[in-house]
């Protein structure tokens, strides 16, 4: 059964208020085409989840689509530096910045993927984060009676993952680093894939490198070549630094809309 649809159709399956997991890491394999479409569709109240986000989180904050961000790190790394829109949104109180260690995001996603409500985390020992956030709690190890911090499960309503190859049923293979994407594909209730290339299923059955994400976890597949640009897509393209700088220079929503408009042809060519 083909799950191929347009970017617009797939984005329409992400609803205001959803907990949204974003694949990739910092400027690598972020699902940028979907992020752009979510801004175009004027989504509201998205609750973002990612270990280390950058332009994706920043753009959604710029677009006013976000009510909270659960993450360990939000920045463009050293060359492109701070995520100004995210920062301003948290400082102005329009977005709740739920700080995690990257590992507690992983632990929270592991809990969701194991169907349990929480996960013990060894390393979170002394931190103001524990008392400042209701998703951390200090409990007693039931066997050793030692204190241990636990993190509450995060089960995204939907996760968007950009992959290099998917077949029309949703089997997908990632080239290069997996980051937390395979974990997201297990932890989230629904998975939307954007893919550089739609391949025939025999690409997986005939290879020793099987699909990383099996079709039965996937709800929608969108063909979007350059779907991670201007971020990198390992094996396909590196970042587009000029475009990144252009985005970082945008002053207002008018500028953002024009920027998004310029991507439409590429994002919709499918």
């Amino acid at each position: 059964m083909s799950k191929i649809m347009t970017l617009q159709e797939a984005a329409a399956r992400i609803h205001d208020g959803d907990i949204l997991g974003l694949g990739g890491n910092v400027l690598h394999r972020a699902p940028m085409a979907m992020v752009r479409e979510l801004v175009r569709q004027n989504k509201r109240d998205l609750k973002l989840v990612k270990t280390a986000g950058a332009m994706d989180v920043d753009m959604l904050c710029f677009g006013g689509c976000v009510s909270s961000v659960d993450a360990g790190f939000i920045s463009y790394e050293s060359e492109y530096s701070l995520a100004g829109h995210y920062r301003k949104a948290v400082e102005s109180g329009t977005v709740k910045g739920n700080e995690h260690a990257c590992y507690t995001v992983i632990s929270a996603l592991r809990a969701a993927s194991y169907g349990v409500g929480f996960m013990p985390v060894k390393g979170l020992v002394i931190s103001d984060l524990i008392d400042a956030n209701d998703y951390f709690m200090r409990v007693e190890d039931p066997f050793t009676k030692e204190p241990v911090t636990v993190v509450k499960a995060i089960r995204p309503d939907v996760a968007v993952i950009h992959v290099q190859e998917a077949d029309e049923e949703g089997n997908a293979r990632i080239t290069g680093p997996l980051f937390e994407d395979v974990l997201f594909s297990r932890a989230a209730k629904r998975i939307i894939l954007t893919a550089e290339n739609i391949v025939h299923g025999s690409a997986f059955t005939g290879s020793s490198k099987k699909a990383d994400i099996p079709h039965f976890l996937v709800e929608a597949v969108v063909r979007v070549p350059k779907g991670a640009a201007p971020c990198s897509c390992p094996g396909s393209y590196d970042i587009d630094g000029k475009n990144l700088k252009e985005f970082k220079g945008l002053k207002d929503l008018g500028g953002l809309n024009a920027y998004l408009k310029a991507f439409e042809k590429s994002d919709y060519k499918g």
Partner: protein
Amino acid sequence: MMEEKYRVCDIMVCAMARLIPDGSKVFHGVSSHMPMIALLLAKALHAPGAVHLNIPGGTDPDPVRLKKYTSAGPELLERATAYFPLMEVFDLAMRGELDVAFLSGIQFDSRGNVNASVIGDYKKPKVRMPGGAGSAVLIPTAKRAILWRTKHDKRTFVNQVDFVTTRGNVERIITPLCIFKMEHGEMVLETIHPTSSLEEVEENTGFPIKYSNIAYTPLPTKEELSALKRIDPGDFRNIEF
């Protein structure tokens, strides 16, 4: 003592490299060009058996060309031996088996508290920082947590951090001016870079400087500088300045 031809970034990277023993398992994360290059330098010189762990998961990569914009890119899988990604590195640390973690923060105080989170109220902060990434769980669990920060001023080294992202087990902090070392729960001046002075350190630190004797950070050797040029021809070790 000032040596015109030496750059602070080289002094810092070489100091970080020398802290890496052969055979140790070492992790760096995002926004971490300096420790990444320090680790590659250590492996090229005195620590060929040090294990390079990183976010993309390439164990001991031999990347053709580092990238200026990232220390978490796919080039860190190139010619790697094993795939051991971020979540596994965290697990390794939780099991007490990660030897060295290079981490950072925005604010530090003399008792080893690290703030990478916020200035002001957590819920509605005056400044929302990028976040501690791995710090909150790695500083307590790595056998050795080594921090670096390319700013050294009174807003960075403060009497009391605004928010404790994590505390304790900080071994050293390497700054553009000096190296601090934690001793008995207190940050002590270990060495001053030859490019700086005790006065400069004192003027730019928000807590009283303690030291037992005045020592200077050894300058990079010719061998180190020449290896650095080979490893980091793009001079990415300097991008934080």
